[in-house]
């Protein structure tokens, strides 16, 4: 086998080991005959298995981390509560002003309508 072919296959071996690539026939034939490529393939498989086992390992965080996280969440929660309270008040103010404006407008229309009626009846 030529060196070039070996290098072409070598670039695919990690993906072959994780199952994301299937070698074509010529490359498979090369690996079957090439001890170096076979060794690399075996080692990539070992490496991927070893990396995967890390997933089951949980490291022990330094003491105090949980308390720090909870404190920052609590602080963020308080800020959020204050913000939503302020937003609520703002909505109440705006609502109050809108209601007052609506009532004022309705009153003005009512007065204007009554005034027009009384003018009409006087004229009649």
């Amino acid at each position, binding site marked *: 086998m030529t060196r070039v072919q070996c290098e072409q296959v070598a670039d695919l071996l990690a993906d072959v080991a994780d199952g994301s690539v299937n070698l074509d026939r010529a490359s498979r034939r090369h690996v079957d005959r090439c001890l170096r490529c076979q060794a690399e393939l075996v080692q990539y498989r070992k*490496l991927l298995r*070893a990396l*995967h086992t890390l997933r089951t390992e949980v490291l022990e*965080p330094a003491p105090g*981390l949980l308390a720090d*996280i909870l404190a*920052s*969440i609590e602080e963020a929660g308080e800020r959020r509560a204050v913000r939503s309270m302020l937003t609520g008040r703002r909505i109440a103010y705006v609502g109050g002003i809108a209601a007052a404006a609506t009532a004022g407008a309705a009153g003005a229309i009512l007065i204007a309508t009554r005034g027009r009626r009384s003018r009409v009846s006087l004229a009649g």
Partner: protein
Amino acid sequence: MPNEIGDLTELVISARAGDQQAFETLVRATYADTYTLAYRLTGDEEDARDVVQESYLRAFRGLKRFRGDAQFTTWLYRITANCASTHLGRRAKHRHDELSDDVPLPDRNPDVDPAARNDARLTRDRITDALRLLPPRLRAVVVLRDVYDLPHEAIAAELGISESAAKVRLHRARKRLREDLFPLRGDQEREEGDARAV
């Protein structure tokens, strides 16, 4: 996450509805795993602590946007990966030496016969050490893909790189880990050959 955290669905629903107590219970159930991921990504305890705190804050603020179509823990991995990437990026502005992909891995046992090293049992400590020696950009991709099974697309999105860049980094990371943990005769020649070709 890997260890028995159990079903977090009810807690997530309550937390999304604004129950802060439920969110705190979620934190208690997951923080050690989140710390483990953060440590694997940053390779430093202090950095991992900062990343974990920032991750939970982001999760707390963004919980309403979590649609529940992925597992809560997967969503948390992605936030943690994003925070770690940002954190390391910020730190790299002050420590340029950390970010180069071209720092050669030191041969810590030059006297040991490579064949004997190949046969030696692969321990978690060795692989953890090898991961720590990788440049952070390569380490992040290989940890997220090969340890935590995140798809290329998610990794690319959280690290702010293209999918093809994520694949290239994964390829380089795996190659370097293999060469560090199981050096073969000829790896050195091949490296030199690649360098000459460049």
